[in-house]
């Protein structure tokens, strides 16, 4: 195997992604976890770029690292921002978990080792933004529209909930 730039980039991105995930599980403070999560999201976006799916990468950063994390941070700060989670796991459970992880790793290894992917058409990445747009607005137009209805319902629901709170507050005063 040659030590190409792509390999180097993939290794460093994968390392950051995995470390971010592990930190997310192991850190105790909620805000630290969210910051670890941002690193994972960004490095996954980097891996998308390596697969020449740059549209997906930009959207991943825009939605996950930008919007969702900020909303999570917002929620945490407005509620119990000093919350910490204490690990309460017995030794037996730890051992069982470790055995489970080993089994899973073994199963995945076996699965990947004998996997033979048929070579897919290799021009999917050309103009992928345009291709995604055309597919979305011709083949998948109904799911797309239904999603927008779902979002609208969520929006109206949150407005209704917020309005109710207001009235209660007013009655209290």
């Amino acid at each position, binding site marked *: 195997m040659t030590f*190409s*730039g*792509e390999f*180097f980039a993939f290794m460093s991105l994968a390392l950051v992604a995995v470390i971010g995930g592990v930190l997310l599980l192991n850190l105790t*403070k909620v*805000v*630290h976890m969210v*910051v670890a999560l*941002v690193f994972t999201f*960004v490095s996954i976006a980097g891996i998308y770029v390596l697969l020449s799916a*740059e*549209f997906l990468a*930009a*959207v991943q*950063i*825009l939605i996950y*690292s*930008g*919007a969702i*994390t*900020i*909303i999570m*941070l*917002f929620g945490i*700060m*407005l509620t119990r*921002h000093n919350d910490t989670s204490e690990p309460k796991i017995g030794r037996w459970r730890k051992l069982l978990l470790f055995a489970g992880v080993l089994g899973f790793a073994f199963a995945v290894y076996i699965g990947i080792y004998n996997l033979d992917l048929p070579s897919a058409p290799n021009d999917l990445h050309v*103009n*992928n*933004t345009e291709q995604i747009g055309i597919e979305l607005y011709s083949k998948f137009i109904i799911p797309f529209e239904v999603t927008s209805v779902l979002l609208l319902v969520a929006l109206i629901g949150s407005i209704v909930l917020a309005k109710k709170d207001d009235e209660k507050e007013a009655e209290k005063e």
Partner: protein
Amino acid sequence: MVEELLYSEAGLLNFGIFFLLATVLLLVVLGFVTYAILAERKVMGFMQLRQGPNQVGGRWGLLQTVADVLKLLLKEDTIPKLADRPLFILAPVIAFAPAFMVLATIPFTDKLQFADIGVGLLYYIAISGLTTVGIVTGAWASNNKYALLGGMRAAAQMISYEIPLVMSVLGIILLTGSLNLNEIVEAQKNGWFIIWQPIAFIVFLIASTAELNRVPFDLPEAESELVAGFHVEYSGFRWAFFMLAEYVYFFAMASLTTVLFLGGWLPLPFLEFIPGAVWFALKFTAVIFILVWFRVTFPRLRADQLMEFGWKVLLPVALANIFLTALLKEWLNIF
């Protein structure tokens, strides 16, 4: 030249070349920041009928910012005892790194560009959203109520104004049919988009001022209410990093405005003999001047007015602009 480099073999030499180019860009940006701060103070001074800096470095105060930066570097680096130490240290880095990353995709002339990404515009918008994470993290890590308030304001403001910003450029994307910044500039050969998309330009200018956290939208660091907002507890070079991020975004946003609405490096008719870089610099300076002018002229908005303006005025106007543009495009296709 960059085109060839991007498709060449990976190796130590190429890594060195890229590293060198990035360092040169960083130095250019630092030079810009130094003199942008001075220019801003001078212009503000003249608009308010005073002199501005005129002591250090001759009559024009040319070394004032250099002296300020030196002072910042020599300052004691304080970290509050009750602050969240790792996040406090990490936050300025998270805030600054995306600011420099977005510069890679901006085409300064038809030859001078670091990365010709197919989704350049989307890349800019996505990456610039990461800075908010840094600001909120820094605000939370400071363990200070003013910092936290400033951070919350910054997050709310940046999320609310990102939407009109994106919506206003959708008209341009409709007309160009591409997210690539080079193609957007090429599409302006028949007239800059400020002529074809005047409403979008106004919405974009307002939303970009809000994204930059500049007056009249500088609520996250409103001195009179929050002491200094999200960076109250920061001092020395950590504070300098936040300021640097802000001014690098100033640079990037002015460049983006030039590329999107003022035709990038394209010359005015009959003046083609002037090189593209000069045109870009001229338009860029004009945008910077307008942003400084805004800062001197407008009073700060109230927090609720800010949100109301973003959601109830800017967003509907931007949506109407998309609708109009789509109609216009179809109408032009019929004839």
